């Protein structure tokens, strides 16, 4: 049984990590990171069967996660560190010279937990698809989780991967779309009106479900349900409704916080809204 309250307290710490990391170097992507903190926490501290130590690149016998929208690296790094892949103190090196915590996730510096470089959008889902094929070939009864942004799915490669996964019945994939409705230049509905996502993925042959991404109980239930829908001949797609910047009051409701850093006052205000639970790094 997953302890939802415990997950909520971890997510609060993860959110503190995110704003502190981005504030420290005055660069990075806090908006999408905050919005996805519940999803990441539920995945890495509850739903996913994974082994942080010793880290194995091939993930044989483990569930595996691929972050396709690599710019939300702060949330990824925080959950990786907090779940034991590398020391929490290393979060202080985010985006700095000689760090393993590159602006966008990379394998080049051998950061445990990261299996592929992402950042140029649309590519991670294909990598996840390759991992799903490998698990099928190996006869592993394990899941491949992938996260994509709802802006990211404007990339054609996403649909190449979805087409392939559906055609090849990769029913060990759980693909989550972070539907926060925002992208750098504005709202997704204005940039590339594509908001009615479920029928599009369904038409491509996926089993589509919805999930409230900023309610821990709903996220846990949603991910568990997604797992139960696996093995039935279709990749599972979760349209995950989130708020960019959640729960920081001055960040929600706009696309502005996609890729800018809070100043000192904004940091203090944001931290006051998210209690320290596990100890700041």
């Amino acid at each position, binding site marked *: 049984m997953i302890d939802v309250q415990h997950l909520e307290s971890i997510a609060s710490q993860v959110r503190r990590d995110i704003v502190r990391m981005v504030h420290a170097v005055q660069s990075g992507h806090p908006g999408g990171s905050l919005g996805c903190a519940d999803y990441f926490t539920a995945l890495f501290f509850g739903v996913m069967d994974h082994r942080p130590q010793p880290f194995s690149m091939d993930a*044989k016998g483990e569930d595996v996660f691929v972050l396709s929208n690599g710019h939300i690296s702060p949330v990824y790094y925080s959950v990786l560190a907090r779940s034991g892949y590398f020391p929490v103190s290393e979060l202080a090196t985010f985006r700095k010279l000689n760090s393993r915590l590159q602006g966008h996730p990379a394998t080049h510096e051998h950061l445990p937990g990261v299996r592929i470089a992402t950042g140029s959008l649309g590519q991670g889902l294909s990598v996840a698809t390759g991992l799903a094929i490998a698990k099928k070939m190996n006869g592993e009864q394990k899941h491949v989780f992938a996260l994509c942004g709802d802006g990211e799915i404007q990339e054609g490669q996403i649909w190449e*991967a979805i087409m*392939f996964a559906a055609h090849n019945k990769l029913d060990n994939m759980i693909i989550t779309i972070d539907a926060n409705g925002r992208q750098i230049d504005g709202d997704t509905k204005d940039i590339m009106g594509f908001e009615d996502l479920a029928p599009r993925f369904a038409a491509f042959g996926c089993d589509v479900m919805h999930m409230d991404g900023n309610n821990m109980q709903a996220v846990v239930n949603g991910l568990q349900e997604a797992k139960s829908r696996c093995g039935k001949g279709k990749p599972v797609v979760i349209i995950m409704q989130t708020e960019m910047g959640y729960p920081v009051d001055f960040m929600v409701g706009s696309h502005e916080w996609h890729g800018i850093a809070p100043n000192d006052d904004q940091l203090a205000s944001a931290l006051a809204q998210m209690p320290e639970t596990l100890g700041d790094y």
Partner: protein
Amino acid sequence: MKTYTVQNEKDTRSGFGAGLSELGKSNPDVVAMCADLTGSLKMDAFQKEFPDRFIQTGIAEANMIGMAAGLATAGKIPFTGTFANFSTGRVYDQIRQSVAYSGKNVKICASHAGLTLGEDGATHQILEDIGMMKMLPGMTVINPCDYNQTKAATIAIAAYEGPVYLRFGRPKVPNFTDPDQKFEIGKALMINEGADVSIFCTGHMVWKAIEAGHILAEKGIDAEIINIHTIKPLDETAILDSVSKTRCAVTAEEHQMNGGLGDSVAQVLARKLPAPIEMVAVNDSFGESGTPNQLMAKYGIDTINIVEAAERVMKRK
């Protein structure tokens, strides 16, 4: 001038297909992927024999490269197959981020490279692929010269850990290298020892260089001919040893002059052993429809062009 016996005329892509089938038998981690060109890439034998390790990706090359990176992450050895144009230019960013920067053990196998693709024309005749691939940190770039060598190279790259670009072609060309050769990545091969001029050649141009060597010999010119099947990492020692003897160089390739083998050889010579160099390559131009022989003649990458380049460069010593 050493004489080579042509065993038969065969396409290098068939050498790839034969090598891949052997790998299917010897290495259970090898996975073959193809973007709807299985027959053209000669991957059908592998597909028939190892259907569980063959992946038809459809006409979706970007996804193929990404999935290959995923398969490699899981410990497989994926060989992707499509035309050279779709293997490189179309998917450059996918190769850059998901394969090269991520250090994945993906073998990008590319057929129909260069002008000798022929009648399909410039849309398909990529002449920039070597340049694009060699610029990527950590990428190995191989361009074997005939059927036997392509087969040997295909087998060799499976045993090497890291991303590789393997380039081959469509037409039947003289098959003259040892059928039992062991392919050594990064090791240039001496075709003919000579004293007057070094000819560094790659791919289909190796046979053209041999033809040129015979013509030059008749003219009293003793050409040293070296097969640079691996453009990256480049066998600098072989180049420097040869040019320190001959004091001048010709390069020959089925590629743009910008970014190709000539570029790489010139860099080595400029840094370590300045010497006159002439480059037989396509000069900042797209190709067009035609037969392979017509195109090589029209675009200046034929036997006679190597002969003339050798004569020119010797005068600049």
